[in-house]
Each structure stands twice: as C-alpha cells, then as structure tokens.
C-alpha cells in the first residue's frame, strides 16, 4: 500500500531524512517512533504530499506522489499534529468543505458526514462552532476530516498529543477500529502508545531508519528502542 524507496529529504542542505526505504502493507498500523527532530513529521508530510522528496520515490496506494500527486492525495487522510481547523466554521460546515474539496458530491458528502460523525462520535457538536470545542473534540474533528472521503491510508502525526487519559484511550480504540479498513501510519514519541496501537514499529534517529520490527516479535519495545538509539 505504501512503498518508500531510498527517500532523502533535505531542508537547505540539512538532511531531515536519509536514504529511507520502507514498505507498509494494506490494513496495517505502522508506528513511527523517534526522539524530537528524528524526521517523523517529515516522513509523514512526505506521505501526505505536503512535501516532495529530494531524492527517491514514494508510492501511495499505487500512485507516485511526485508524478500523480492528485491521485495519491485522494487516497490519503492526514491529521497533522497542530490540528489545522477553521475556528469560525461549524463542525458540519468544516467537514462538508473538506469532503467537497476532496471531490465528493453533495449527496455523498452528506452520507459521509453522517458516517464519520458516528464513527468519531461528533453527533452532539456537529452544529457547534469549532472555536468553542475542547482539545479532545478538536482532535476528533481533525480525525473526522481525514476520514470523510474514506481514504485507503490514514496518516496521524502524534494523534494523542495533549489529550487527557480518557481521550487517549478513545483515540487508541478508534485507531484500532479503523485498522484493516485502512492502512494507518502514526508517529509518536511515546513508546507505550505505539506498543498498544501499532502492528509494526519503525524507529528513526537523525533522519536514519534504524529498523522496522513487528510488535508481536518484540516483547520489550523499550529495550529495543534503547539498543537502537
């Protein structure tokens, strides 16, 4: 579903990612672990199409993100860490806007709105202005906008950042419930989060991919992380 081949990303000659090769299978949840500045967000932004690789190739759902960016973006839902939302819009307006922007017809958008609001449990705040929502609800709205067009791939950058323990549990359950239906790539710097949510883990350090392991074969993620980093 995702094929990253020898990707390097430079910011003004400073490498953020160096020769990363990684494959993710359909329906899999991949956790991307690494300390701050290790290149996690750069990797996710490359997959979402927000950045272009300096060297290498990224294939998303069979489409090259450089040569067929529109096709690739149609199949990806992306939730950045900063929760980009329009505060002046109501939740339903925002989700409708995102659905229409991704090419859904008004009728399909209405159906999709009902589906995601149930999936992410947003029914009670659908008519509320986004600026009045708590951090937890904003997180749900951000996830809902990424799911509104039923993407093949969901990319989540630090999805539990800033949430309270209950919201973290809910987000974790949501991610697990989506696994299988779509391929999920999520970044985190919290080992336990990745351990409980992902099927496999990719560990990054200073732009290098140090290793990719199945969590079923990794009894002690903490020890593995420490040994690699």
């Amino acid at each position: 579903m995702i094929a990253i081949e020898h990707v390097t990303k430079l910011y003004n000659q400073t490498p953020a990612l160096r020769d990363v090769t990684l494959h993710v299978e359909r329906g899999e949840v991949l956790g991307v672990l690494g300390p701050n500045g290790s290149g996690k967000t750069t990797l996710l932004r490359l997959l979402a199409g927000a950045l272009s690789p300096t060297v290498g190739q990224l294939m998303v759902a069979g489409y090259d993100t450089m040569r067929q960016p529109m096709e690739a973006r149609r199949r990806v839902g992306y939730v950045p860490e900063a929760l980009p939302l329009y505060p002046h819009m109501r939740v339903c307006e925002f989700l409708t806007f995102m659905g229409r922007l991704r090419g859904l017809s008004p009728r399909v958008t209405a159906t999709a709105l009902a589906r995601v609001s149930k999936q992410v449990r947003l029914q009670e705040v659908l008519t509320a202005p986004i600026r009045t929502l708590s951090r937890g609800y904003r997180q749900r709205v951000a996830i809902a906008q990424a799911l509104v067009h039923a993407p093949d791939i969901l990319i989540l950058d630090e999805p539990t950042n800033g949430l309270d323990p209950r919201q973290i549990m809910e987000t974790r359950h949501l991610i697990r419930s989506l696994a299988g239906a779509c391929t999920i790539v999520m970044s985190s710097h919290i080992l336990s989060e990745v351990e409980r949510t992902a099927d496999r883990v990719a560990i990054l350090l200073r732009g290098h991919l140090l290793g990719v392991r199945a969590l079923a074969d990794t009894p002690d993620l903490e020890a593995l992380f420490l040994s690699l980093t």
Partner: protein
Amino acid sequence: MSALGVLLRKELHATFTSPIAYAVGTVFLLITGYTFSLTLFLTKVANLTYMFHQMYVLLVLLVPVLTMRAFAEERRADTLELLLTAPVREVWIVLAKFGATLTLVVGLLALSGSYAMVLGLYGEPDWAPVYGGYVALVLLACLLIALGMLTSSLTDNQVWQRPWHSASPSCCGSLTPPPICSQLLAISSL
C-alpha cells in the same frame, strides 16, 4: 461544483463575514463620498476626476488590509497544510483567494458607481473617461491584490506586510512617469 468553486465559496464566506471587510468598505465609501460631494459643490463640473485620484490612493492604502491575512492566517493556523495535502492544485488556492478579494473590491467600486449615477441624473458627464477610469481602477486593484498576496505568502507577520506592500506600488508609481492617477486625470480631461 469543482474544487476551485468550493475554495472560492469558502474564501467568499471568510471575506464577507470578516469585520475587516466592512471596516474597509465603510472607510472607502465615507472618504469617496466626502470627496465627491466637496468637488461637485466646489467645481460644479460633472466629472469624477478627483474621485479617481482619491480612489487610487485609497486602494493603495486599503487593499493591503484585505490581503494581509490571505496566506499568513492560513499558515498561522496550520490550515495551509490541510489545503496543500488535499487533491487541489496550488494555483486554485491562490485564484480562490484572489477572486474573493477582487469580488469585494469590485463591489466597493460598484457602490462608488452611485456617484456616477448621480452625475448622470443631474448633469451630462462624458461617460468614456468614467468607464475608462473604472477599468483602470479594477486593473489597479488586481495588481495590488496580487502584490498583497505575494507579501502574505512570504511572511507570517501581518503587521510587517502593510508598509512593504503599500510602499511598493507607490515606489513603482513615482518611478513611472506619469503615475496612474495622472493618466486618469489626463483621460478625464479629454
């Protein structure tokens, strides 16, 4: 509706629900109304020469207020990333913002057309310079909006953009004799 239409609708909604648009509109119409009344009573001549002169200066000063948030605000709220990862072309995002601001400015110019209507009702103005003047102002507005969006895309700081943007067409005007306002005056006196 295409993605461009969806983006344009969103930008129009954002523009026309913003208090800045109404503040700019009020200032523009108050000042042009004052100039129109004053020049009409003083000169008793049915032309809009001074109005065009005034509107040129007003557009240079007020358009940056409308455009300064275009991209800076999107970047500050991180929503630009949302648009850039959607299956839309970057040029559509720019065109939607340009179109929404131009709609507002053209709307203001259209409202100022009521002064021309007053002249038409009570006098015999030469219409060709009036039409020409309005076409020139719309083209000037296009230039200013494009410049404003360029500066908005280059910096996050909205306060810094205004003097830079206001200065650039003024500098261009002073370096290009005769400036646009003088050309408008020349057209009006034909």
